[in-house]
């Protein structure tokens, strides 16, 4: 009985258990407070409608991707092909849209491809006994090749949606609405169904999960498919922003997702402490820096340095320390 209470008592115990979350929340709050106070000094404010709009535009694609990626990261896995997937889907939606006059067919085609890629990425680790990052790396290279060949054939480095207009996709309220729906659906799946519970269990201890009757292949595939679908939704907004796509669309997004999730307190080895809120907190912190720092006169290329420092602080604060040995 003595041991049980030990680890959880007092502030230290609480910090040990919730340290990552606390650091993530305080990081976001700190950013909000800091920019609220400091930006007016330079004659601007992050609370101006125009700036808030910029913030939403900045956050939407990253947030939509990160929320879906929670499923994969909770497995303790990651997928580095999602940036290139965004590029592919955005291109498809534009090209198919121009050909058919509707977004629908491009979206459907993208969904089909995302499900296939998700299934392969999810199953590869278990079936071929390779690290799941490896198969996503293969997809990243394949998609880079596909995009390069395609744009070469088109003879231009970008394609624009010319058949019709997609004004709705640029509306901040619509962005927030879609994000809200996605967060609700993913939260439901993640917290109240077997899909999420099993994914977290696999991340926490895959041997134990398997011995408890969880099919590793099945639930890993499902996790990747859920992320793939969210990536398609994100691609739609990425395309809608400029009503076009190019051969560099989506490049590096996979890293932004990783950074956002870590900023949001997501444990990189997955498990029970994974939360959907990590994706939201992280994405908003990330976007806030993108919008806020230039207002203070920070050069865009210096923004990276500041992000890197913040990233380092969060990682140092949240990395799991070896806990002291308990008496037996």
């Amino acid at each position: 009985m003595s041991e049980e209470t030990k680890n959880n008592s007092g502030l230290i115990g609480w910090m040990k258990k919730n340290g990552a979350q606390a650091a993530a929340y305080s990081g976001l709050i700190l950013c909000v407070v800091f920019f609220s106070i400091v930006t007016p000094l330079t004659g601007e404010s992050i609370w101006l409608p125009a700036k808030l709009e910029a913030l939403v535009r900045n956050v939407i694609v990253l947030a939509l991707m990160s929320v879906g990626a929670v499923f994969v990261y909770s497995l303790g896995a990651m997928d580095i092909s999602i940036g290139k997937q965004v590029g592919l889907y955005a291109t498809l939606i534009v090209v198919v849209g121009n050909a058919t006059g509707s977004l629908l067919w491009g979206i459907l085609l993208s969904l089909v491809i995302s499900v296939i890629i998700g299934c392969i990425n999810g199953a590869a680790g278990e079936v071929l006994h390779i690290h799941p990052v490896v198969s996503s790396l293969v997809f990243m290279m394949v998609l880079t090749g596909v995009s390069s060949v395609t744009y070469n054939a088109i003879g231009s480095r970008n394609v624009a949606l010319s058949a019709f207009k997609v004004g709705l996709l640029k509306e901040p309220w619509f962005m927030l609405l879609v994000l809200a729906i996605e967060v609700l659906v993913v939260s439901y799946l993640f917290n109240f169904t077997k899909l999420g519970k099993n994914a977290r269990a696999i991340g926490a201890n895959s041997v134990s999960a398997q011995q408890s009757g969880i099919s590793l292949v099945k639930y890993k595939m499902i996790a990747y498919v859920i992320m793939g679908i969210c990536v398609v939704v994100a691609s739609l907004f990425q395309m809608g922003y400029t009503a076009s796509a190019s051969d560099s669309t989506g490049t590096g997004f996979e890293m932004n997702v990783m950074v956002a999730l870590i900023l949001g307190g997501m444990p990189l080895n997955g498990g029970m402490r994974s939360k959907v809120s990590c994706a939201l907190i992280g994405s908003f912190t990330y976007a806030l820096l993108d919008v806020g720092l230039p207002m203070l006169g920070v050069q865009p290329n210096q923004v990276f340095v500041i992000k890197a420092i913040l990233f380092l602080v969060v990682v140092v604060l949240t990395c799991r320390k070896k806990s002291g040995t308990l008496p037996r």
Partner: protein
Amino acid sequence: MVNEVLFEARNMHKAFGPTIALKDVDFTLRRGEIRGLIGENGSGKSTIMSIASGMQPATSGEMTYMGKPWQPHNMIESQHAGISMILQEANTISGVTVAQNLFAGREAEFSKFGVINMFKMYRAAEEMLRKFGITHIHARDQIDSLTFEDRKLTEIVRCVDDDTQILVVDETTTALSLEGREILYKLVHKMADEGKAVVFISHDMDEILEQCTDLTVLRDGDIIGHLTREEMDAPDAVQRIRYMMVGREIGGKYYREDYDSSHSDEIALQMDHISFGPIRDFSLTLHKGEIVGFGGLSGCGMHEIGRAAYGLEKLEAGSVTCNGKKITDCLTAIQHGIGYISKNRDSESLILDAAIQENIVLPSLTALTGPAGFISPASEKKLSDGQIDAFRIKCGTGKQYVNTLSGGNKQKVSFGKWMAKGSEVVIMDCPTRGVDIGVKQAMYALIEQMKKDGKAILMISEELSELIGMADRIIIMKDFEVTKEFTRSADLKQTDIIEYMI
């Protein structure tokens, strides 16, 4: 030199926040002693020695070692000074050879200009192993190719050298095979004869009574008493020690008291001429309401039989059936009412980094799923709280993480998982490993109740007394073959069984 005080602690106090692990205890260790430390989980028996060996600092108190004040900062410092502790958990470095494990941190002794002379290291390692009387482990072996037991032996060899003055053995023997134990016991007595001291921290009363020269009993962070060798030989010693440990009379009932080995004729689990790996043509019929015990040395194949019954082994021939359905993997096993408690509690049975509730409900999630895939948090809590109450798992709430629980309570959680699922066949591999007597007693009562409820139990154990005490049938294995089968009887003695194991 014998009887000279080697280590002394005065008013040693250790608190974790509001909880006190050690209450101002005084502890003296003399040369030539083999001191047993016994007590229930959380009594503070490991805490004393973990402070002495620098694993954690004391809150207050003083220590003297070899006549000088002693304040170690870490375990490496202690080991250099001559206090070595062998821990319960595996502590070897994976991915390298035995020799590299033995000389981890001492590579400089074998290197010239930054290049390690591996040949020299292998030779030294081989010599070291032989010195301990270990002939079956070789310096060039990959550590991962060794069994858990042999990795433990490697660790012992690494911990002990000529300068070791105090060797602390913390619950290690439960992880060792019979041969391994003999090697350790020989070492322990040799050290005592050389005027060094050994501290044995163990749950195993028989072992303590056999090996130790002195015994200290702890309870709730207090030293309750000491027993000399003469007192340990007294006929009522076991009763007395148990009373000191628990602080109340342990009811006479421990194992089953009946010798009725009857059970239902209905077959619960059938293993039909199965072959896989080194196991050839093995058959077993397990009935409802029957407890079948498996005994043998570790490495005899009994653990593999348990895994095969749960669908974890790929069969080359034969089949495992439950209720007429073929078991092909653990998914089908669970669906047909089989539960499995692995002997590797912390790495396989439980998700340590998850709440008690999350562990208990895990196999039952499918059953809890309602329309639209919805699993109601209330139903999860109800299922888990039911088990927490039934097993009296000592915890705040079901949300508490499993890694904060003591060994006995962890094991209760892994039992609770399958009780919550309502499993009809339960395969338990070393169900009471590292569990103290209070909890053991409760578990035996539970297993007996399960039998009465018509559940079928496959009990694999390294403790013969437990098998004799609980099983209707005992199957003894040696070198992957069944050597003998015993039926439950009051006359069955351990000595009758052992000859079929070795």
